[in-house]
């Protein structure tokens, strides 16, 4: 009986007017969130470069503000706003979440941290584990990533706690692309470097205001060339790399350089 009395002291007496107000506030917040999540990406996808990314990045922030604002409006309708009541309620809810919905709560908190730290935003190209793709939506519990093969992958924010996230463009419109070439060691490296630079400079996707480079590394099986450059837009990365690879191979073949082929050894283990 004392417990029931204490609980009843925490909550307000809810009448029909309070219920109507409660439903109206939650419905309005839901509509606002839906509108923000639809309208801003719609506008953002019609913009180019940095403007697009900046606009897309505001979506989860605005949603978080709406949710916090809604909670601030709803709580006084349900409970008597005193410190004791708030501590008692939050402690109870926290305990329940801690036992029953531990992973869900962990993802929610990680989502708030991710939005605050801006580890990834809409439009970023991220790698989490073996998954690489463009962030299309930063939700409260998960991020939605669309891979180059057009697969939609939902990754819980909770992975942030114990896994590294590689962000290729980090809010910028462009990201570095690398095209690899593997050549037989008998060739003129200086000449190859020059022609590979020309291959980059003549690509229709090249963004000229970022540096380009040709890195060379001698390996036991041959010479490894890594051609680094930035495309005009991060969405062109695969077309850019394909273009560099196709034209680079054609030019290197014309130069007389021999591409290495690693022999495939069949696995004879029982």
């Amino acid at each position: 009986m004392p417990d029931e009395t204490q609980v009843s002291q925490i909550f307000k007496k809810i009448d029909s007017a309070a219920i109507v107000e409660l439903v109206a506030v939650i419905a309005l917040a839901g509509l606002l969130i839906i509108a923000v999540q639809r309208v801003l990406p719609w506008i953002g996808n019609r913009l180019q470069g940095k403007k697009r990314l900046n606009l897309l990045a505001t979506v989860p922030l605005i949603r978080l503000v709406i949710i916090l604002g809604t909670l601030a409006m709803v709580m006084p309708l349900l409970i008597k706003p005193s410190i004791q009541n708030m501590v008692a309620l939050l402690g109870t809810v926290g305990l329940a979440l801690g036992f029953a919905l531990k992973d869900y709560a962990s993802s929610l908190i990680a989502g708030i941290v991710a939005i605050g730290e801006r580890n990834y935003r809409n439009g970023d190209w991220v790698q989490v584990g073996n998954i690489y793709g463009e962030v299309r939506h930063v939700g409260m519990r998960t991020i939605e990533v669309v891979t180059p093969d057009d697969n939609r992958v939902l990754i819980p924010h909770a992975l942030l706690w114990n896994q590294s996230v590689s962000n290729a463009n980090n809010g910028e419109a462009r990201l570095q692309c690398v095209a690899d070439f593997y050549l037989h060691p008998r060739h003129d490296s200086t000449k190859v470097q020059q022609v590979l630079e020309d291959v980059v400079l003549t690509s229709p996707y090249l963004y000229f205001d970022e540096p380009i480079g040709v890195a060379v590394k001698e390996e036991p099986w041959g010479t490894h060339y890594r051609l680094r450059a930035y495309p005009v837009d991060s969405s062109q990365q695969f077309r850019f790399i394909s273009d560099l690879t196709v034209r680079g191979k054609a030019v290197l073949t014309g130069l007389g350089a021999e591409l290495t082929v690693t022999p495939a050894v069949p696995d004879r283990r029982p």
Partner: protein
Amino acid sequence: MEHCYLRHANGLKLVRQLLQRAENGRLGKGLIGCDSLAWSYLQRLWSVPRPDALTLQAFDSSRLARLLSSMTVCRSGRRVHFRNAVNGNSILTVPSEDDRVRSEIVQLAAYCRGNVGTAVRYWRERLRSEPEAEPSEPSNSEEIEQTDEPDEESVWGTGVLPEPVMPAGTDEDFALVLHVLLLHGGLPESLLSQLLPLSHPRCMALLLRLCNAGFIQYREDRWSVPELAYATVRGLLRGRAYLTDDF
């Protein structure tokens, strides 16, 4: 110089030799002309500063008004008054009554970024009747010249700048085609598929769609961007962060 190279790994040797000889002074004294976009690209290939490179000063509104006045031939001896056909506002009077430059000339100069070639082309395209033309059928009062005052004849111009509209479903390939055409000052269709990662049929389809929309024209065996589309195309490419000129 825009015709001395191809944006291809095997197409830069000639222009590099040319620039090198010009740098060494082996070409002697002379003047080399180059399109502004091609020059912007060549500066990335040959990054030696050229303090002696000159460009035509941008035509501001007063210079443009003087140029347009000097181009106007007044055969009847009367004053020629250019007016906006939409609102009747005065655009230009030849000979001029005062030094004031009308806002439409200011807008034209700003829109064309001081590029005199495109400004003159826009100006001509906007005119709806010639001063000496006599209307046979006065069906449309806006299109005929009016002689309100005996010592003045009016020429009417459209109120909006004639601009092409990009085809619906604009994709990245349109920008690639327009960019390569601007960098080379026009190209024959046979070279497009060698300079772009697109097949020949795809290039032809894009060329025809762009041509129908008024963004490119076929002239002297080359596809090129006409003056009336230049400002739009440049704005499109610049908005997408493609390499453009600095002025």
